[in-house]
């Protein structure tokens, strides 16, 4: 190799927040597999055979990104937990606390998100957040370097003020075998693009006790639903309209009833709605609710379902300024298989 002495990767940024936001979105397990390419990073987290979450981190999130390809793929496993903790060492990459605690995560046995850490000194963080808000916004800059296989991933972090610097040496491991089932675009049964907001609100409303979530889509111009005798005229009209344009529906069954959320295929709701035949699949709600955190601060969501029921959700982050046409500022992808239909 000619460039044997050069590090495989050097990436720099003056604000780690977009990076931390993407990584936090897939923080459902402690460890993640990171793959480096010319296009940036692909960080993958997998729950055995059931769920696969990938963060596509493009190079435009960095002020500089130098990649010296290896003959073999530049892939390693690391602790996502620790990486997020490092990025937040100065407190400038934390999750913006707000309505982000989803109903499902607060009522079910508390699942610890990567990077959240044991809540030991939490009240202390609060007054720090308060004090950092008062002053002008602080940012953490980063320089990430990886010399190659067998080396630690080293990260240098500093506040832009003349404050302290932090170096992190993250252990890298041989990557675990990934399933990463591919989504077959040819075999698509449903393709929807809409604003994240719409979808996030829906996830927020789902009953905490539900165990399965059913997605249902009707193509436009299906037969009118059965006339319900005691329905009001306006609700009949609504049903008729929806049947005509087609609609997408999220159904969640909980202990105290069923929640149904309807999204008609209207221009202001759907950016895109491709559905030829009626589609109906159910998914594990604990997996589905993981999307909630990922949707935080995102702009668009693209939902695709294969004919087999395999679901692929892509979540797009707001574009940063220097993105060329067709580029993106980070995409989170979640893939999961449908549950067996129960009788």
């Amino acid at each position: 190799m000619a460039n044997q002495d050069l590090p495989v990767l050097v990436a720099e940024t003056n604000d780690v927040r977009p990076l931390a936001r993407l990584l936090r979105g897939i923080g459902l397990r402690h460890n993640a597999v990171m793959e480096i390419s010319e296009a940036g990073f692909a960080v993958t987290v997998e729950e055995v055979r059931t769920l696969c979450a990938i963060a596509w981190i493009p190079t435009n999130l960095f002020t500089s990104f130098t990649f010296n390809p290896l003959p073999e793929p530049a892939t390693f496993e690391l602790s996502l937990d620790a990486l997020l903790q490092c990025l937040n060492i100065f407190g400038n990459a934390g999750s913006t606390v707000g309505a982000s605690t989803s109903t499902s995560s607060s009522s079910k046995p508390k699942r610890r998100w990567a990077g959240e850490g044991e809540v030991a000194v939490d009240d202390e963080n609060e007054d720090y957040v308060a004090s950092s808000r008062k002053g002008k916004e602080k940012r953490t800059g980063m320089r990430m370097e990886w010399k190659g296989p067998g080396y630690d991933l080293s990260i240098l972090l500093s506040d832009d003020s003349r404050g302290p610097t932090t170096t992190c040496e993250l252990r890298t491991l041989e990557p675990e075998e990934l399933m990463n089932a591919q989504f077959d675009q040819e075999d698509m049964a449903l393709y929807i693009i809409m604003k994240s907001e719409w979808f996030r609100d829906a996830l927020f409303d789902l009953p905490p006790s539900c165990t399965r979530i059913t997605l249902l889509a009707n193509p436009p111009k299906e037969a009118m639903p059965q006339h319900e005798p005691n329905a009001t005229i306006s609700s009949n009209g609504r049903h008729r309209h929806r049947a005509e344009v087609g609609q997408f529906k999220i159904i969640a069954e909980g202990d105290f009833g069923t929640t149904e959320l309807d999204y008609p295929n209207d221009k202001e709701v759907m950016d895109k709605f491709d559905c030829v035949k009626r589609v109906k699949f159910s998914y594990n709600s604990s997996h589905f609710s993981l999307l909630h955190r990922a949707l935080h601060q995102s702009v668009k969501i693209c939902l695709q379902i294969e004919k087999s029921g395999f679901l692929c959700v892509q979540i797009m982050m707001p574009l940063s300024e220097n993105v060329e046409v067709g580029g993106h500022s980070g995409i989170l992808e979640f893939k999961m298989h449908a549950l067996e239909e129960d009788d």
Partner: protein
Amino acid sequence: MRFRTAISNVGLLHKITRSLAALARSCVIRLSPEQVHFIVPGNESSTGVQVWSQVKVATLFDSYKIESNANNEIWLELHLDSLLKVLRSADSSVGSISESRSTAALTDSDVTLKLNKKGQQPIWAFEIRGYTAQRKAMSITHEIPVKILSPKRQAELNEPLCPQPDIHVVLPNLLELRNIVSRLSHVADDVKVSANHEGRLELTANSSRVNLTTTWKDLNVPTATSADEEQEPPPPDQMFTVSVAIKGFLKFLTSHLVGGTAIACICEDHCLIAYVYIGELNEAGGVLTFFIPAKITDD
């Protein structure tokens, strides 16, 4: 045995008590004619952190009168929780607890403290006097039980002996430091504190997943005041290191409330000593001294 004083700086006393309450449940207060000593012996706190502090009487008190037949000194022990409750009330009455005056604030208020006896039980009686918003005179009295320490018990309390520190360094802002250390606590149980004479301070936390090192540069390194030993000065880039429990370190960092300059001394493999100065360094109204025992690690 008589003791009576007005508390002129309720806010500061409140802050000191809060920092001590983070460490232990009870504390020994040694009152002498010139100084007040707050002492948290090592066996009181779970982390082995000790506090031996001295504050000038004038920093906290006014019209201070003390008499006893033991050098006019009184040693007493009290529960920090109960003291904290009283001071919170007094502090809000005086209105110094926050910039926006609380509705409970009294005007022209003053707080006095007396050592009394209720039956056989010695008590500290706090009296808060002032005027309500309607200009009505108001007086609030709190009494907390205290324990007078016998001379025998007094003799048992000894400041820990430490070797000559290897290095002194002025710490960065304690709040900033605490926030970083509290994040390190998610990574590891211990933190390595290292410093050298170039003013470099490093905090290192190691775990199986990640090694984290936070570095400050160009901190002040006060030169040793006692020039009694003519020793060869160590090379300026030689790092002196001590490992301490993050829990214990964080407890000391609660003293950021007191808000003064802090100096850390490293006694390699022995302890970390931190001095938190009350007020400006040169006209020190007092100093809180924290002894944080070293953790002996394998490496």
